[in-house]
């Protein structure tokens, strides 16, 4: 056991060393530096309401992505986002536990529940697992609202900020995100990750080559739900208030959309997906207003007389269409397309004469 572990470590080390010499590495450093410096020039609103959610959902989407890379497409991930949120916030508020520790404990509890739920799911096929995970999210939100005396889930309650709003919170979240996503990257690149891929491709064949599919599926669940809970705690702190709405099905579909649109199975996919969807979320509704001032005060309303606010449903419909289009025409997501575009641009510069 320990020898395979040492071998894994060794192979990871080699991977990391190889990577650090590659072009991708410089790209990564540039991206991190960019993400770290850019916020200084932007308003507090953009940093705290646009960039910070992007980072938090990048963690969340990455956690879902890790689970999906093992063939387990969960439709109930909001349960873990919510558990992480509530546990972190409740501990911080009611027991005076330092919020950072609360964050960690929330993630642990989320992983523990993830382990239990994972146990029920290990032998299930993809679509059954999807339903069961959705079912669990419904059960969990019902429990939380019924135990309102302990959880205050119905009316909700404010959460502490930990550090100052805006840049300090952003940097704290950013640091946590880098560590989290890097950890998930290591897992996915290791033998464990290879096992995930094998199970996803063909579970029967994976079993035949001796992979203990149940064990690896469970590992995927635990790691994934740990980071989902972590994202949940950050989510609760960033909004400043938590209530049962964190368990809404929308938050179960969000990481799915982000990971799939960005690029399922890749490490950069969920990050890109998060950036795209948060941008759409925050800025698309304003298009209705912008169009309104261009076309005339009514904007798109005359086209849709039944609704008074066209932006939000149009945006959600757009997201649905976007997801379908990506799955049908670009099943590997947007990330590979960006890579292609980048390669095309940089290689055309290098065209030999």
């Amino acid at each position, binding site marked *: 056991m320990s020898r395979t572990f040492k071998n894994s470590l060794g192979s990871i080390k080699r991977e990391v060393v190889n990577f650090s010499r590659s072009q991708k590495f410089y790209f990564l450093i540039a991206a991190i530096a960019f993400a770290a410096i850019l916020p200084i020039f932007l308003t507090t609103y953009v940093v705290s309401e646009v960039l910070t959610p992007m980072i938090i959902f990048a963690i969340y989407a990455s956690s879902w992505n890790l689970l999906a890379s093992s063939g387990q497409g969960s439709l109930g991930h909001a349960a873990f986002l919510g558990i992480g949120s509530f546990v972190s916030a409740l501990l911080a508020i009611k027991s005076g536990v330092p919020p950072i520790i609360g964050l960690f404990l929330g993630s642990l509890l989320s992983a523990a529940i993830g382990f239990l739920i994972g146990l029920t799911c290990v032998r299930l*096929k*993809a*679509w059954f697992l999807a339903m069961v995970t959705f*079912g669990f999210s419904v059960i969990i939100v019902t429990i939380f609202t019924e135990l309102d005396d302990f959880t205050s889930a119905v009316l909700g309650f404010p959460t502490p900020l930990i550090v100052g709003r805006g840049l300090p919170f952003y940097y704290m979240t950013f640091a946590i995100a880098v560590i989290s996503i890097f950890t998930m990257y290591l897992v996915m690149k290791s033998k464990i990750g290879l096992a995930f891929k094998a199970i996803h491709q063909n579970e029967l064949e994976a079993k035949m080559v001796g992979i203990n599919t149940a064990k690896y599926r469970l590992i995927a669940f635990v790691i994934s739900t740990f980071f989902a809970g972590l994202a949940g705690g950050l989510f609760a702190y960033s909004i400043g208030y938590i209530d049962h709405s964190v368990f809404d099905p929308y938050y179960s579909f969000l990481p799915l959309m982000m990971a799939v649109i960005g690029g399922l199975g890749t490490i950069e996919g969920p990050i890109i997906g998060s950036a795209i969807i948060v941008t759409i979320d925050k800025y698309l509704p304003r298009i209705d207003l912008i169009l309104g001032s261009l076309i005339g005060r009514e904007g798109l309303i005359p086209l*849709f007389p*039944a609704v008074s606010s066209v932006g939000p*449903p149009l945006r959600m419909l757009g*997201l*649905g269409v976007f997801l379908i289009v990506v799955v049908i025409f670009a*099943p590997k997501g947007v990330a590979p397309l960006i890579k292609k575009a980048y390669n095309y641009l940089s290689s055309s510069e290098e065209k030999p004469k």
Partner: protein
Amino acid sequence: MITSGLIGALLWGVVIGCIYILLATGLNIIFGVMKLVNFAHGQLLMIGAYIAFTVTTALGLNAYIAVLVAMGTVALIGVGLERFTFRRVLGADKLNEIFVSLGLIYVFENAAVLLWGNTTYQISSPLQGLQLSLGQDVAISYDMLSAILIVIVILVALFLLLKKTKIGLAMRATSQKSNASMLMGVNIEKVYIFTFALGAALAGAAGALYGILLPFNPAIGALPTIKAFAIIIIGGLGSIPGAVIGGLLYGIAENTAVYFLGATWQDAIAFALLIIVLVIRPTGILGEKGE
């Protein structure tokens, strides 16, 4: 303690169960023949309700004729869905089917919001308010009776179609072994289109009946889908009698639980049942056919 209240809840459970049966049967057929998982199936129910509502209010048609119109229209929508979205992801990674159907949920739900608004409507039926007294302070409305009758008629028609017609034979052959039936000269593509349209038509009927009995809005599609899946899992994937029994049991159990425990636990209990079944028998109670 059989009270009139409990009987009333049971009757209502039977009616709701019938609507679930229609929805589950449509899902069953599609899964049985195409091995396709469509989480947006409940959205077809919702669209069926809205179409029935639109033809009754705009054209003044009888609510029960509207059921037929809804069936036809939703069947056409089903053909479009099959052709343009599902056909392209069929057979590959199962997860892709799930993703596409999730996207469709958002598309349908928000299209309904844009077209009809968020208002809650209900289809007015000519039989509204009329009740049949069964004695002992128990009554059943004629609308409820009609719904049960219509479901029975549809199921019988479906049974005949599957057993006695050529296309039904082709469908059954495909559900057993699609490769073998292709060798036998069955046009798989046509079968798929027909199957999906049929399943969609059933969902449309379920929706139109739903709209007569209950108020509806764009969001009603989500939960019935999950319940339909639960029913066919419990009843056994691909088994139509299983879906019938499952649907009735489900409707009754759900309403009885609500009667005694209150509605808050309704959904949670439904899912708990589903989860327990799946854990004990990962392939469902009656097992899968043609897997």
